[in-house]
Protein backbone atom coordinates (compact mmCIF):
# COMPACT_ATOMS: atom_id res chain seq x y z
CA UNK A 1 0.00 0.00 0.00
CA UNK A 2 1.43 3.41 -0.85
CA UNK A 3 2.38 5.83 1.86
CA UNK A 4 -0.33 8.31 2.87
CA UNK A 5 0.23 11.86 1.69
CA UNK A 6 1.82 13.29 4.82
CA UNK A 7 1.00 16.90 5.60
CA UNK A 8 1.37 16.87 9.38
CA UNK A 9 4.41 18.78 10.70
CA UNK A 10 7.27 16.46 11.60
CA UNK A 11 8.36 15.29 15.05
CA UNK A 12 11.35 17.37 16.11
CA UNK A 13 14.73 16.75 17.68
CA UNK A 14 14.60 12.97 17.24
CA UNK A 15 17.62 11.64 19.09
CA UNK A 16 18.98 8.88 21.30
CA UNK A 17 19.59 9.65 24.96
CA UNK A 18 21.87 7.00 26.43
CA UNK A 19 23.21 6.40 29.93
CA UNK A 20 25.34 3.31 30.65
CA UNK A 21 24.05 2.02 27.29
CA UNK A 22 20.40 2.27 28.27
CA UNK A 23 19.44 3.71 24.90
CA UNK A 24 16.14 5.61 24.78
CA UNK A 25 14.79 7.37 21.72
CA UNK A 26 13.34 10.81 22.48
CA UNK A 27 11.62 13.45 20.33
CA UNK A 28 9.49 16.54 20.58
CA UNK A 29 5.92 16.77 19.32
CA UNK A 30 5.37 18.39 15.92
CA UNK A 31 5.09 22.16 16.12
CA UNK A 32 1.63 23.51 16.76
CA UNK A 33 -0.01 20.18 17.56
CA UNK A 34 -1.71 19.84 20.92
CA UNK A 35 -3.00 16.57 22.35
CA UNK A 36 -4.10 13.63 20.29
CA UNK A 37 -0.88 13.02 18.36
CA UNK A 38 0.20 9.40 18.08
CA UNK A 39 3.54 8.02 16.98
CA UNK A 40 5.18 4.99 15.39
CA UNK A 41 8.84 4.04 15.78
CA UNK A 42 11.19 1.97 13.66
CA UNK A 43 14.92 1.34 13.83
CA UNK A 44 17.67 -0.06 11.63
CA UNK A 45 21.10 -1.57 12.18
CA UNK A 46 23.47 0.51 10.10
CA UNK A 47 24.63 -1.44 7.05
CA UNK A 48 21.76 -3.94 7.20
CA UNK A 49 19.09 -3.47 4.66
CA UNK A 50 15.83 -3.25 6.59
CA UNK A 51 13.93 -1.05 8.98
CA UNK A 52 12.33 -2.86 11.88
CA UNK A 53 9.13 -1.65 13.55
CA UNK A 54 9.03 -1.47 17.33
CA UNK A 55 5.61 -2.93 18.25
CA UNK A 56 5.69 -1.63 21.83
CA UNK A 57 6.01 1.89 20.43
CA UNK A 58 3.20 1.68 17.87
CA UNK A 59 0.39 4.27 18.23
CA UNK A 60 1.86 5.69 21.43
CA UNK A 61 1.19 9.25 22.58
CA UNK A 62 4.33 9.60 24.71
CA UNK A 63 7.46 11.10 23.14
CA UNK A 64 10.03 8.47 24.02
CA UNK A 65 10.67 4.81 23.23
CA UNK A 66 13.16 2.53 24.97
CA UNK A 67 15.28 0.83 22.31
CA UNK A 68 17.91 -0.51 24.70
CA UNK A 69 17.08 -4.10 23.85
CA UNK A 70 17.29 -3.49 20.12
CA UNK A 71 20.55 -1.55 20.32
CA UNK A 72 22.38 -3.60 22.96
CA UNK A 73 25.11 -4.86 20.61
CA UNK A 74 27.61 -2.04 20.92
CA UNK A 75 29.68 -3.38 18.04
CA UNK A 76 26.90 -2.19 15.75
CA UNK A 77 25.57 1.27 14.96
CA UNK A 78 21.94 2.26 14.55
CA UNK A 79 19.37 4.65 13.18
CA UNK A 80 15.87 5.16 14.56
CA UNK A 81 12.93 7.01 13.08
CA UNK A 82 9.58 8.41 14.26
CA UNK A 83 6.34 9.21 12.37
CA UNK A 84 3.43 11.23 13.81
CA UNK A 85 -0.30 10.78 13.21
CA UNK A 86 -3.20 13.16 14.02
CA UNK A 87 -6.79 12.96 12.83
CA UNK A 88 -5.90 10.86 9.79
CA UNK A 89 -2.99 13.05 8.78
CA UNK A 90 0.62 11.96 9.18
CA UNK A 91 4.12 13.37 9.16
CA UNK A 92 7.24 12.19 7.37
CA UNK A 93 9.55 9.70 9.05
CA UNK A 94 12.09 11.70 10.99
CA UNK A 95 15.44 10.02 11.65
CA UNK A 96 18.17 10.24 14.26
CA UNK A 97 21.78 10.75 13.33
CA UNK A 98 23.84 7.55 13.30
CA UNK A 99 23.98 6.22 16.86
CA UNK A 100 27.12 4.47 18.16
CA UNK A 101 26.34 3.05 21.61
CA UNK A 102 30.03 2.82 22.45
CA UNK A 103 30.84 6.48 21.90
CA UNK A 104 27.45 8.16 22.25
CA UNK A 105 26.49 6.94 25.73
CA UNK A 106 26.92 8.87 28.97
CA UNK A 107 28.49 7.15 31.97
CA UNK A 108 27.29 7.47 35.55
CA UNK A 109 29.82 8.27 38.28
CA UNK A 110 31.43 5.29 40.04
CA UNK A 111 30.20 3.97 43.36
CA UNK A 112 32.59 5.08 46.11
CA UNK A 113 33.04 3.23 49.40
CA UNK A 114 35.36 4.65 52.01
CA UNK A 115 36.87 3.26 55.19
CA UNK A 116 39.40 4.97 57.42
CA UNK A 117 41.96 4.58 60.16
CA UNK A 118 42.99 7.57 62.28
CA UNK A 119 45.55 8.71 59.69
CA UNK A 120 44.45 7.25 56.34
CA UNK A 121 41.48 6.67 54.09
CA UNK A 122 40.93 3.56 51.96
CA UNK A 123 38.77 4.11 48.89
CA UNK A 124 37.19 1.38 46.74
CA UNK A 125 35.60 2.40 43.43
CA UNK A 126 33.07 0.43 41.39
CA UNK A 127 32.28 1.30 37.78
CA UNK A 128 28.59 1.22 36.80
CA UNK A 129 27.17 -1.73 34.93
CA UNK A 130 26.07 -1.74 31.32
CA UNK A 131 22.28 -1.73 30.91
CA UNK A 132 20.87 -5.25 30.92
CA UNK A 133 17.53 -6.72 29.90
CA UNK A 134 16.67 -8.22 33.27
CA UNK A 135 18.16 -8.55 36.75
CA UNK A 136 18.85 -12.24 36.03
CA UNK A 137 21.01 -11.43 33.05
CA UNK A 138 24.74 -11.51 33.64
CA UNK A 139 26.12 -8.12 34.62
CA UNK A 140 28.72 -6.47 32.42
CA UNK A 141 30.79 -3.77 34.07
CA UNK A 142 31.64 -0.77 31.91
CA UNK A 143 35.23 -1.62 32.83
CA UNK A 144 34.89 -4.59 30.47
CA UNK A 145 33.45 -2.41 27.75
CA UNK A 146 36.13 0.28 28.11
CA UNK A 147 39.42 -1.46 29.01
CA UNK A 148 41.25 1.89 29.28
CA UNK A 149 38.79 3.19 31.90
CA UNK A 150 40.38 5.28 34.67
CA UNK A 151 39.18 6.97 37.86
CA UNK A 152 39.85 10.57 38.87
CA UNK A 153 39.55 10.87 42.65
CA UNK A 154 39.32 14.10 44.64
CA UNK A 155 39.96 14.23 48.41
CA UNK A 156 39.02 17.48 50.17
CA UNK A 157 40.09 18.46 53.71
CA UNK A 158 36.89 20.15 54.87
CA UNK A 159 38.74 22.19 57.52
CA UNK A 160 41.59 23.58 55.42
CA UNK A 161 39.76 23.28 52.06
CA UNK A 162 42.94 21.73 50.68
CA UNK A 163 42.14 19.28 47.86
CA UNK A 164 44.18 16.42 46.34
CA UNK A 165 43.55 14.83 42.95
CA UNK A 166 44.53 11.29 42.00
CA UNK A 167 44.19 9.53 38.66
CA UNK A 168 44.21 5.73 38.97
CA UNK A 169 43.56 2.75 36.71
CA UNK A 170 42.89 0.15 39.36
CA UNK A 171 39.88 0.62 41.64
CA UNK A 172 41.46 1.03 45.07
CA UNK A 173 43.32 3.96 46.60
CA UNK A 174 44.80 4.51 50.06
CA UNK A 175 45.42 8.13 51.09
CA UNK A 176 47.93 8.20 54.00
CA UNK A 177 49.27 10.97 56.35
CA UNK A 178 45.92 12.55 57.05
CA UNK A 179 45.08 14.62 60.13
CA UNK A 180 43.28 12.69 62.86
CA UNK A 181 39.83 13.97 63.82
CA UNK A 182 39.37 15.82 60.52
CA UNK A 183 36.51 15.46 58.03
CA UNK A 184 37.47 14.63 54.47
CA UNK A 185 35.18 14.61 51.42
CA UNK A 186 35.92 11.97 48.76
CA UNK A 187 34.50 12.25 45.25
CA UNK A 188 35.30 10.29 42.11
CA UNK A 189 34.76 10.49 38.34
CA UNK A 190 35.20 7.96 35.55
CA UNK A 191 37.47 8.98 32.65
CA UNK A 192 37.72 6.98 29.43
CA UNK A 193 40.67 8.37 27.43
CA UNK A 194 39.53 7.07 24.06
CA UNK A 195 36.80 7.31 22.97
CA UNK A 196 36.72 10.33 25.27
CA UNK A 197 33.97 9.80 27.86
CA UNK A 198 33.81 11.44 31.29
CA UNK A 199 31.20 10.81 33.98
CA UNK A 200 30.20 13.47 36.46
CA UNK A 201 31.75 13.39 39.95
CA UNK A 202 30.06 11.20 42.55
CA UNK A 203 28.20 12.95 45.35
Amino acid at each position, binding site marked *: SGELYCSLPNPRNVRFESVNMKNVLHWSAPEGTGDGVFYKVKYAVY*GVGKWIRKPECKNINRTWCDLSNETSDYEEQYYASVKAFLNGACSDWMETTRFNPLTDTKIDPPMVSVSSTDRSISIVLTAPEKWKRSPEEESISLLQVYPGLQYNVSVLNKKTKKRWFFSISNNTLVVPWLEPGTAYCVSAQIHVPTP*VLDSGYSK
Partner: protein
Amino acid sequence: GACRVSMSMTEIRAGFTAIKANIQSRDPIRTLSILSHPHSLHKVKSSDRCCITYQLFTFYVDKVFKHCRTEDSFVNRKISSIANSFLSTRRKLGQCHEQNNCMCGEESTEKLKQILANYEGLNVTSAAMKSLGELDILLDWMEKSR
Protein backbone atom coordinates in the same frame (compact mmCIF):
# COMPACT_ATOMS: atom_id res chain seq x y z
CA GLY B 1 52.21 -11.56 13.96
CA ALA B 2 53.89 -9.47 16.64
CA CYS B 3 53.88 -5.81 15.70
CA ARG B 4 53.69 -2.97 18.22
CA VAL B 5 53.09 0.50 16.76
CA SER B 6 52.43 3.67 18.74
CA MET B 7 49.82 6.08 17.40
CA SER B 8 47.75 8.86 18.91
CA MET B 9 44.28 7.39 19.03
CA THR B 10 43.07 10.28 21.18
CA GLU B 11 44.09 12.81 18.50
CA ILE B 12 42.46 10.86 15.69
CA ARG B 13 39.34 10.30 17.79
CA ALA B 14 39.09 13.98 18.64
CA GLY B 15 39.50 14.93 14.98
CA PHE B 16 36.84 12.47 13.87
CA THR B 17 34.40 13.37 16.64
CA ALA B 18 34.60 17.01 15.55
CA ILE B 19 33.43 16.17 12.02
CA LYS B 20 31.44 12.95 12.55
CA ALA B 21 27.95 14.50 12.31
CA ASN B 22 28.95 16.54 9.25
CA ILE B 23 30.49 13.61 7.40
CA GLN B 24 27.81 11.05 8.31
CA SER B 25 25.05 13.46 7.24
CA ARG B 26 26.56 13.38 3.74
CA ASP B 27 25.99 9.61 3.58
CA PRO B 28 22.29 8.90 2.94
CA ILE B 29 22.70 5.13 2.50
CA ARG B 30 21.65 3.37 5.70
CA THR B 31 21.45 -0.10 4.25
CA LEU B 32 25.08 -0.60 3.28
CA SER B 33 28.28 -0.46 5.27
CA ILE B 34 31.83 -0.56 3.93
CA LEU B 35 33.50 -1.97 7.04
CA SER B 36 30.90 -3.72 9.19
CA HIS B 37 28.67 -5.84 6.95
CA PRO B 38 28.42 -8.59 5.97
CA HIS B 39 31.66 -9.33 7.82
CA SER B 40 32.27 -7.59 11.15
CA LEU B 41 35.77 -6.44 12.08
CA HIS B 42 35.03 -7.72 15.54
CA LYS B 43 35.25 -11.30 14.29
CA VAL B 44 38.88 -10.93 13.10
CA LYS B 45 41.30 -13.44 14.61
CA SER B 46 43.93 -11.85 16.84
CA SER B 47 46.72 -13.28 14.67
CA ASP B 48 45.39 -11.29 11.71
CA ARG B 49 44.91 -7.98 13.50
CA CYS B 50 48.18 -6.48 12.39
CA CYS B 51 47.60 -7.34 8.76
CA ILE B 52 43.98 -6.10 8.75
CA THR B 53 45.06 -2.85 10.43
CA TYR B 54 47.85 -2.34 7.89
CA GLN B 55 45.59 -3.11 4.92
CA LEU B 56 42.82 -0.83 6.23
CA PHE B 57 45.24 2.02 6.85
CA THR B 58 46.45 1.55 3.28
CA PHE B 59 42.80 1.54 2.11
CA TYR B 60 42.09 4.84 3.89
CA VAL B 61 45.32 6.49 2.72
CA ASP B 62 45.06 5.36 -0.90
CA LYS B 63 41.31 5.30 -1.51
CA VAL B 64 39.46 7.41 1.05
CA PHE B 65 41.06 10.63 2.30
CA LYS B 66 41.97 11.96 -1.14
CA HIS B 67 38.33 11.73 -2.28
CA CYS B 68 36.86 13.50 0.75
CA ARG B 69 37.17 17.19 -0.03
CA THR B 70 34.26 19.29 1.22
CA GLU B 71 33.22 22.92 0.91
CA ASP B 72 33.93 23.35 4.63
CA SER B 73 37.53 24.36 5.43
CA PHE B 74 37.23 23.29 9.08
CA VAL B 75 36.16 19.79 8.01
CA ASN B 76 38.93 19.67 5.38
CA ARG B 77 41.56 20.59 7.97
CA LYS B 78 40.36 17.83 10.28
CA ILE B 79 40.37 15.31 7.44
CA SER B 80 43.93 16.16 6.47
CA SER B 81 45.09 15.96 10.08
CA ILE B 82 43.55 12.48 10.40
CA ALA B 83 45.06 11.54 7.04
CA ASN B 84 48.53 12.59 8.22
CA SER B 85 48.17 10.50 11.36
CA PHE B 86 47.14 7.53 9.23
CA LEU B 87 50.05 8.08 6.86
CA SER B 88 52.66 8.02 9.63
CA THR B 89 51.08 5.01 11.32
CA ARG B 90 50.84 3.17 8.00
CA ARG B 91 54.57 3.78 7.46
CA LYS B 92 55.37 2.16 10.83
CA LEU B 93 53.05 -0.74 10.12
CA GLY B 94 54.75 -1.07 6.73
CA GLN B 95 58.05 -1.84 8.44
CA CYS B 96 56.39 -4.70 10.31
CA HIS B 97 54.85 -5.88 7.08
CA GLU B 98 58.24 -5.97 5.40
CA GLN B 99 59.67 -8.02 8.26
CA ASN B 100 56.94 -10.59 7.65
CA ASN B 101 55.43 -9.87 11.03
CA CYS B 102 52.11 -8.80 9.66
CA MET B 103 50.76 -11.47 7.34
CA CYS B 104 47.11 -11.99 6.42
CA GLY B 105 45.35 -15.31 6.82
CA GLU B 106 42.81 -16.57 4.30
CA GLU B 107 39.79 -15.39 6.29
CA SER B 108 41.13 -11.85 6.58
CA THR B 109 42.06 -11.70 2.92
CA GLU B 110 38.42 -12.57 2.21
CA LYS B 111 37.21 -9.85 4.57
CA LEU B 112 39.44 -7.25 2.90
CA LYS B 113 38.14 -8.32 -0.51
CA GLN B 114 34.58 -7.79 0.78
CA ILE B 115 35.46 -4.32 2.07
CA LEU B 116 36.89 -3.36 -1.33
CA ALA B 117 33.81 -4.84 -3.05
CA ASN B 118 31.55 -2.74 -0.78
CA TYR B 119 33.63 0.31 -1.65
CA GLU B 120 33.60 -0.34 -5.39
CA GLY B 121 29.84 -0.88 -5.29
CA LEU B 122 29.39 2.89 -4.93
CA ASN B 123 30.67 5.85 -6.89
CA VAL B 124 34.03 7.05 -5.62
CA THR B 125 32.89 10.12 -3.72
CA SER B 126 30.00 8.34 -1.99
CA ALA B 127 32.21 5.37 -1.16
CA ALA B 128 34.98 7.59 0.23
CA MET B 129 32.58 9.71 2.28
CA LYS B 130 30.85 6.60 3.65
CA SER B 131 34.20 5.06 4.55
CA LEU B 132 35.28 8.24 6.31
CA GLY B 133 31.98 8.27 8.21
CA GLU B 134 32.77 4.75 9.41
CA LEU B 135 36.14 5.66 10.89
CA ASP B 136 34.75 5.12 14.39
CA ILE B 137 33.99 1.51 13.47
CA LEU B 138 37.71 1.04 12.73
CA LEU B 139 38.82 2.97 15.84
CA ASP B 140 36.37 1.10 18.11
CA TRP B 141 37.72 -2.21 16.82
CA MET B 142 41.36 -1.13 17.20
CA GLU B 143 40.84 0.10 20.76
CA LYS B 144 38.91 -2.95 21.81
CA SER B 145 41.58 -5.28 20.51
CA ARG B 146 44.61 -3.40 21.85
